[in-house]
């Protein structure tokens, strides 16, 4: 993994300067294409247009249509042909244009992508990366704001990765493409334009897939989150200081594999935890995280692990989404319910 994230074979990259997550993802694709001739990018509008979010901008121009290919408009076909390409030894990187438009590929994903290695006792690993822009907060109309991670993390055979920072966007995408296992790479679309001082020249800072990052230490309670909700949690932690709360924030980065050790260690330290994510709460990632932490840390818990998640409703229309998305207030209200007296 770490080698995967090294600068190997990369064309001279710019020095540390403000970059957006979109730019970091684009650089990761460019570097992966340059580093390994087996890497092929395919999807709808990834060519001349550079993708609707411009994540593949310039790749076809630089590497040619065979390396970055506009496909016909059919997601099962895209993923299904990617399976065949991987069977032949290529490393397809598939772009699904939006979260909800990955659903047509669900059978290929669950019945083949996730199972081919196991089915063949390891003879046919499928090093496929499926890039899916996910989540809301961008005023998208119906079907453009789904958080579908729970479907994927419940599917054995898939790795499920989601970056929350510019640096991780680069490093985790490089690592995902270099992985010999299929990776669902969930891109928090509302963080595409988030900026950070970043240089692709320091990929060594990037953790391998499967390691959570403690984004903020805290003694009072721990916020456990990932992807689009990280900035919200950090903001909440800031605001909590006024209440005299010292909240820690853990960024999971990878839902599968799940970094139980790190999360459990942090929660044992605080005895209180809240899991925060955008997707509907019922049967969401937060349920697994809460259940697992409780199994591991029961006697360290001063209060039940609570969850702040999207409501159990279809994603709202743009004008109402702010009520659905976990915000600072809802997070702090929940922290306030961590039974401070009884603890």
């Amino acid at each position, binding site marked *: 993994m770490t080698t995967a994230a090294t600068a190997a074979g990369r064309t001279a990259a710019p020095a540390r300067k403000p970059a957006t997550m979109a730019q970091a993802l684009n650089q990761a694709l460019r570097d992966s294409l340059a580093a390994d001739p087996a890497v092929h990018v395919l999807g709808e509008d990834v060519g001349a247009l*550079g993708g609707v979010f411009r994540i593949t901008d310039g790749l076809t121009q630089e590497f040619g249509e065979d390396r970055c290919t*506009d496909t*016909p408009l059919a997601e099962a076909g895209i993923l299904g042909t990617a399976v065949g390409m991987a069977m032949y030894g290529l490393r397809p990187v598939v772009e699904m244009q939006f979260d909800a438009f990955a659903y047509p590929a669900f059978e290929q994903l669950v019945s083949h992508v996730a199972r081919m290695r196991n089915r063949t006792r390891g003879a046919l690993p499928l090093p496929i990366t499926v890039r899916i822009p996910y989540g809301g907060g961008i005023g998208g109309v*119906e079907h453009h704001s789904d958080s579908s991670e729970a479907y994927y993390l419940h599917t054995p055979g898939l790795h499920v990765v989601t970056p929350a920072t510019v640096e991780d966007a680069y490093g985790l995408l490089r690592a995902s493409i270099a992985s010999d296992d299929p990776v669902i790479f969930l891109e928090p679309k509302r963080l595409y334009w988030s900026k950070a001082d970043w240089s692709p020249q320091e990929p060594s800072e990037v953790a391998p897939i499967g390691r959570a990052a403690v984004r903020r230490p805290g003694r009072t309670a721990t916020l456990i989150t990932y992807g689009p909700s990280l900035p919200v949690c950090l903001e909440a932690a800031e605001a909590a200081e006024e209440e005299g709360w010292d909240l820690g924030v853990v960024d999971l980065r990878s839902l599968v594999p799940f970094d139980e050790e790190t999360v459990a260690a942090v929660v044992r330290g605080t005895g209180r935890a809240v899991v925060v994510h955008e997707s509907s709460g019922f049967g969401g990632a937060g349920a697994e995280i809460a259940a697992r932490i409780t199994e591991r840390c029961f006697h360290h818990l001063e209060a039940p692990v609570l969850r702040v998640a999207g*409501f159990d409703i279809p994603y709202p*229309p743009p004008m109402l989404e702010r*009520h659905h998305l976990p915000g600072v207030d809802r997070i702090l209200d929940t922290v306030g319910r961590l039974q401070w007296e009884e603890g």
Partner: protein
Amino acid sequence: MTVLDTPAWRPRTDAAPLLPDPEPYRLLGTPDAARLDAALLRSLYGQLVRGRRYNQQATALTKQGRLAVYPSSTGQEAGEIAAALALRPQDWLFPSYRDTLAVVARGVDPVEALTLLRGDWHTGYDPRACRVAPLSTPLATQLPHAVGLAHAARLRGDDVAALAMVGDGGTSEGDFHEALNFAAVWQAPVVFLVQNNGFAISVPLAKQTAAPTLAHKAVGYGMPGRLVDGNDAAAMHEVLTAAMDRARSGGGPTLVEAVTYRIDAHTNADDATRYREDDEVAAWRTHDPVTLMECELTARGLLDDALRTGAADDAEAMAADLRERMHATPVLDPMDLFAHVYAEPTPQLREQRAQLQAELEAEHRS
């Protein structure tokens, strides 16, 4: 004679009549246009002018932040309007996200037709009352719905047919295949209209299919395929009306490919210069659906000032009304988020509803 002559596999359909014409069917500017009723041409003209204006107005509303996004049908007005006019009150329209103009031409209030794109809700009109399905964003997924509804109506013995719209890109989806196959097997009273504008966002038709034409796909389902000049409102009207009549009379489904071009980009948010040449756009402007109709009317001496200004004024009035009503910001009740998930909210939803209610009251107090 062998067992191969058993019905089990034997063609039940003759392929020849299913094949589309080699060239798109046209009426305007051809001798055949002579037989066209003047009143029809006049009303089509009025609708085209109105439709063009509607597209301009909706696009303008995006610039004023009154619409989240607008996928224009400028250049495709002939298809949008012909689709609506081919329907009787009891028939159903299954539009794609592109087809708000067809929905409006069908008689739905433009403000309600634009609800999805304004972002206050997912659908603004009552589909049952209007016999118009919600605008469908997931491509081609509305096609099996149209088949199922038409089939249901037939099972009920009702004289109802459905018309479903999809783009050239949408024909690549599995749902397109499954829908057309079900329709043909069930002989459902449904017509599939493919508006082929040569692009799926940035992807040109040559990267979408290698078929002779999209209309040729019909043969593989055992239904007739028709190839039409999608900018010729009269040809579109004639072909769609004939296909709908055929469906109603038990003749089964038809696939109609309308060859057209969208002058506007994919949506207001799209930058078309990244993938298409200006002179291609210019070339298609010479084959504009409104102009084609104007030429025909002029040739037949039908385009007098009354018609011209009448159409323009009517379009202006529609646009002014739309502009004004879209400027009023809709009043929304966040509690609606929980009202329609199920017939009865689950215990969990009741709890979440109460939570939001409390949050809003707190917000209000502070």
